């Protein structure tokens, strides 16, 4: 059975792109979230094997969402999606419980490597 992914990003563009990369690698995209609040809700509901998380989102940012998700499930595997220049935020996300990060612009190979590190 393929592994399940929840994609959290406020941009459809980014969700589509990450979704395409992961789907082509055989993952099953079980849900998408546009806000941090949705991300937490959907995580509880879907219990995916992997979460990709944008840092800047409306409602609740990615970092707080990671904190909430990890509180709920310490084993949660969250991969942060970061833009250049967000070093401090990524560090904060890792402290909050994120397992790894990728830096935009995304290259499929780098995304998949990061996913393997997170799941490995």
């Amino acid at each position, binding site marked *: 059975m393929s592994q399940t992914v929840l994609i959290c990003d406020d941009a459809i563009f980014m969700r589509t792109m990450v*979704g395409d990369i992961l789907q082509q690698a055989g993952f099953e995209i079980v849900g998408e979230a546009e806000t941090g609040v949705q991300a937490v809700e959907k995580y509880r509901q879907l219990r995916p094997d992997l979460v990709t998380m944008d840092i800047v989102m409306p409602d609740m940012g990615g970092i707080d969402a990671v904190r909430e998700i990890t509180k709920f499930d310490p084993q949660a595997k969250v991969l942060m999606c970061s833009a250049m220049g967000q070093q401090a935020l990524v560090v904060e996300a890792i402290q909050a419980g994120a397992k790894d990060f990728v830096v935009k612009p995304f290259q499929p190979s780098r995304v998949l490597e990061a996913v393997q590190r997170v799941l490995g």
Partner: protein
Amino acid sequence: MDTARYAELFLTESQDNLSAINHALLELERTPAAREPVGALFRAVHTVKGMSATMGYTVVADLSHELETVLDLVRRGERQVSATLMDTLFSAADALERAIELSVAGREDEVDAAETIAALRAAAVSPRDGSTAPAALAKPKTRKRGSGASVAAPAAITIQVTQVPDTPMPGVRAYLVLERVKKLGTVVHVAPSPETFEADTFDGCLTIGVDTGASDEEIGHAIRAAGYVADVAVTRAGAPEGGKRPAPPNGDGARLGGNVGRASELVPSRQHRHIRIDLHRLDTLMNLIGELVITRGRLQQLAMTINEPALTEAVTQTSRLVADLQDGIMTSRMVPVWQVFDRFPRVVRDAARALGKQVDFVVDGQEIELDRSLLDEIGDPIVHLLRNAIDHGLETPDERVRAGKSPTGRLTLVAARDRSAVVIRVTDDGKGIDRDRVLARAQEMGLVESTRTDLTDDEVMRLIGRPGFSTAAQVTDISGRGVGIDAVHTRVRALGGTVDMKSVKGEGTSVTVRLPVTLAIVRSLLARIGDETYAIPMTHVNETVQVERDTIRRVKGREVLVLRDDVLPVVHLRDVVRLSRRDGGGGQVVVLEVADRRAGLVVDELTGQQEIVIKPFDAVKDGLSVFSGATILGDGVPALILDVSSLF
């Protein structure tokens, strides 16, 4: 990566974000102390930055990065929102929009963002000490551990980690390595210190002293799992010569347990409630349904001739299905007007600012739906009307106060559904149109004889719609280039709509644009002149009457028809198409109504009603301004569609 696939998606979503940026900027300008607009701005700009970097649109990414830097300072209260800053932000938003459009069009090299970037950088530089903000931005806020840990102390194990060259965010990656090591034991020292991980001087080499019971293998594995690790060297105290290199060959560590499935296991499980469709596809469908409607007309005629009950029934049923299909496709083309209205608050703000006027802009009826192609066409004319209202309608705050009004002018844009039409109305509470000035200008231009002073208000208003008419005392950037209201008239008429103006001196002006809900298919009355058939859209048909020749009289040299106590001007379709009039007999008169005005159109014969599909042609360009398009009738014969509003 095949980014071309994503270009369309990128453009659409960037436009959404640009619109959000403009809204948030307007909001911020109104309430400079509010935090919410800054947050919204930051998110939108950030999204654009991420997307553009992925697309490889460097200029867009750079621009949004600089903009984001300034916004972050505002967000953290390190910059005050001033008028100058707002101007910089607004023009940056504009530059961003241009850069996006050009980049998507493959003309990124034409983007000139240097000036905007310089302005943003200047805004980011603190006015006091001249230090740039981005350096502060890069500093992590929370750094609980690490400080003090860099004091060298004898450790059982020293680990040297070398990162892969060009590792993205090497500092964060190093931090991840450190986190992994912490899980193995107690970190005694770290060099360089974690505070400097993100500095430019960090060269990707890291030395960590740790007390741990883990084996070399376990250490190597844990560190490599942090990613982008080229080499791990573990030295144990008491093993003076370099120690072993327990780490597995490059990449291995990261691959352990990699559970990436096969592509064949791909399960398409994404659920969409909305999909984005290329407008061209809908246009194609619309054209096809148009052809189908024409064929249906022909089929119905044939069935009537053959008069075979089974055939007639089948044809009737087909007709119904075609009608449903047509309805479905039309509905799928409808979009709410806010998709175009959305940019107007910004337009109004800029115009008001440029002209030194205060405007309270209210938009209503944003949810009203219109055919997509119509909506695209109507945007510019409305911008024109709004600018006109601000430039010529609304007074300056001083003038308003002197006239006993509030210094802030009120400008409203309302969309509403009215039967099969959509009405869009722009109203201002400005000085209104000066009737005498319009008349004087019209006489000067030779549009009316100077002796005529008995024009009704309506007639005067209509003069404004004449080509080239403008009373603006001086040409401004905002409007008054001589392509004023008449340009709006021309465009709206080409869309099968009408424009109506009402104005009360000193109280304001209101311009009403009436548009058909959809462009492509309209129910029409078919009229015959000689061998030719002409289509008259039913939107404008009030009624039809059979008249005797002597019912049409002459009053002051003009032909009129007296219809139930109402006197209507009369137009002969034969005159319009430049055929000689028939002798004797009356004829059919179609009573037309456009914007509360009525007129009678005399035709030879009426042959029926039909749904017609409008095939656009450049009638106005070719000088045949009385026709708005052409169609093919059920019997395969082409017919011209009359532009009813041109007859008034």
